[in-house]
């Protein structure tokens, strides 16, 4: 056993060193930035799809004493609410024939395709004409009219103080914590577990695998590689978490204090998050490692990546569904199924205070981890090294 662990350690140390102390690792550390940029791009695109590309245009029909207070009121509102929130006002050019402020002029103004509404009349008796039935637009024009009637305030000064929301332990808050923790862990898993698919390609392409297989047991190679992947990932996560925490502390010092404490308390919950991330990573990584070790080329690994990602999404969905009903059948099932169990149990930690199910779950997950590694190594021996004929159970092997 000592020799086995020592061998795994040699493999893990090599993999870790070769990855973390390489220039490419800096690029790897920047991955979340790419994800954030990706999110930002999508948010912008989503914004475009959600509303009109420009704020509505409203024609103001009337004299200076009508138009001026309106435009001034609009400017005040835009300062508080943002330029997009209030319609844009435009003085309508006066007809040559003279001044008029009736419905006829409003209809004339609305012939212009850029104009969505017209406001005419006086401040006391305004008339708003809207194209279509955009009640929202009518309300917003009403807001401008109200502000115009009230006139500019005596003072615009407002003292603002930002305070933390007092924590209130409530069910929905805990659900939020469960959801965010699961999503966070899942996001990291998606980002990081895929690495282990391709980790065997290096040894296979440069033929080092033969030297490794001759010197140390295949199981030790698998364990070593998996532990190295985990260590690399935890290194990345630690750096990311450190950076994110620093950023949050610096810019939004009260963002976290308002969150509801999870059922087991924050320190234990964060410990559980790290622990369950680790176990989940190892479980998924073991499967990926096994699959990846069967691949002969980077091309094959790429082909595997897609279905494997879908499987991960499925596990996440399963665990999330379990969190909605922690004691329903789906909650129990997702906690029992080894690959969804860590995420599911993390959700449970946010909702339910008892600790013993976690010890039980961890032991159960570790048992499956050992099994998964052994099966992956056995498959590798059989399919890649072409070793051994049929499948034999360990006790039968010893008898031979």
């Amino acid at each position, binding site marked *: 056993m000592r020799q086995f662990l020592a061998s795994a350690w*040699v493999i893990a140390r090599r993999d870790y060193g070769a990855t973390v102390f*390489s220039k490419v690792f800096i690029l790897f550390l920047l991955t979340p930035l790419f994800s954030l940029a990706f999110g930002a791009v999508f948010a912008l695109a989503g914004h475009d799809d959600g509303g009109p590309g420009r704020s509505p245009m409203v024609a103001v029909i009337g004299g200076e004493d009508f138009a001026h207070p309106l435009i001034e009121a609009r400017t005040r509102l835009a300062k508080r609410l943002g330029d997009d929130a209030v319609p844009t006002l435009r003085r309508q050019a006066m007809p040559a024939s003279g001044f008029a402020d009736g419905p006829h002029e409003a209809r004339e103004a609305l012939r212009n395709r850029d104009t969505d509404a017209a406001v005419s009349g006086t401040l006391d008796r305004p008339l708003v004409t809207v194209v279509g039935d955009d009640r929202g637009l009518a309300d917003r024009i009403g807001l401008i009219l109200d502000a115009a009637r009230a006139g500019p305030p005596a003072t615009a000064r407002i003292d603002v103080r930002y305070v933390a929301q007092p924590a209130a332990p409530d069910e929905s808050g805990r659900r939020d914590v469960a959801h965010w923790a699961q999503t966070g862990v899942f996001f990291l898993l998606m980002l990081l577990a895929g690495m282990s698919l391709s980790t065997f390609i290096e040894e296979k392409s440069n033929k080092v*695998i033969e*030297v490794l297989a*001759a*010197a*140390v*047991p295949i199981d030790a190679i698998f364990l070593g590689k998996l532990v190295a992947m985990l260590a690399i990932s935890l290194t990345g996560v630690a750096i990311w978490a450190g950076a994110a925490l620093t950023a949050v502390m610096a810019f939004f010092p009260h963002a976290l204090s308002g969150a509801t404490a999870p059922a087991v308390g924050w320190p234990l919950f964060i410990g559980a998050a790290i622990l369950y991330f680790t176990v989940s990573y190892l479980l998924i990584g073991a499967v990926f490692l096994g699959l990846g070790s069967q691949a002969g080329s980077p091309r094959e690994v790429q082909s595997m990546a897609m279905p494997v990602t879908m499987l991960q999404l499925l596990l996440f969905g399963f665990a999330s569904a379990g969190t909605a009903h922690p004691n329903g059948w789906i909650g129990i099932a997702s906690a029992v199924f080894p690959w969804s169990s860590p995420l599911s149990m993390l959700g449970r930690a946010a909702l339910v205070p008892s600790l013993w199910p976690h010890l039980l779950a961890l032991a159960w997950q570790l048992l499956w981890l050992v099994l998964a590694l052994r099966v992956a190594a056995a498959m590798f021996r059989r399919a890649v*090294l072409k070793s*051994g004929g049929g499948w034999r159970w360990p006790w039968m092997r010893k008898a031979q």
Partner: protein
Amino acid sequence: MTSLAVEASKLVKRFEGQRAVDGIDLAVPEGAIYGVLGPNGAGKTTTLRTLLGIIEPDGGWRKVLGEDRPMRAAPRIGYLPEERGLYPSMQAKEAIAFLGALRGMTLADGRRRAGELLEEAGLGEAATKTIRQLSKGMAQTVQLLGTIVHRPKLLVLDEPFSGLDAINQQRLEGLIRAQVAEGSTVLFSTHVIAHAERLCERISVIAKGRVRFDGTVAEARGRLPSRVHLTTRAGDGPWRAALPADSIADGRNFDFALPEGGIEPVLEALIAGGAGIESLAIERPSLHDAFVDLVGEPVPQPEPGEVQP
């Protein structure tokens, strides 16, 4: 009696129904230089990989340095695979230390000894170069040094001479002899006879997954009769009847296997017939001749009592 470093009995290994190794027996005494000879595709590599425990046999058993499960003896074994492989981005010294670590050395010990070995091999300045920067021959030397860095008791080399120039082949022979002088056992495979002839005390000749011959080089050569090369002054005469029927004649040169009765009756007939002996040489057959003779033989049928797994 010396004990055996490697022992194998009736090893069988099938790949997709085909028997790559088909009942091989092997006994390598401790401290020997033992050669496994065979043509390409004879099953040499599969035999070595099975002995090392990289693959499990489908039948038979093996014992390496006293262990039924070769992996238990791994720290005492050095192995140079036929397809050499190192991490290209590793420095030469680190690569050797890593191979040592795989065999149970500490990295510090490995690095120190790697430095010594590289200096001895005249590659001192290559120590901090990455494998990618080395020439193919140098990389191969680095891997060989990595194979012996932990002072293995058993050294298994698969086609160690392939890809080396004559000078490096000579060096490798020296290194193998030095290892044995320090108490190691060396088992290597080759399809080049000359190396086996110069180095080995014992050899196994393998073809089509079976052992055709097992014994000393002298015994292998002794299987064939000596050849007689004769040149006469006369071209023809009644004395020709005294030469064996399967003699190869080329003008006044004759080449034939030494008759069982010895050369004397032939000589007497030649002298009596006035053939005029210009030159006469009796040569023992080379290992090469023996090898071709052994490998060319039809495959021996399995004995009736042999169990077919």
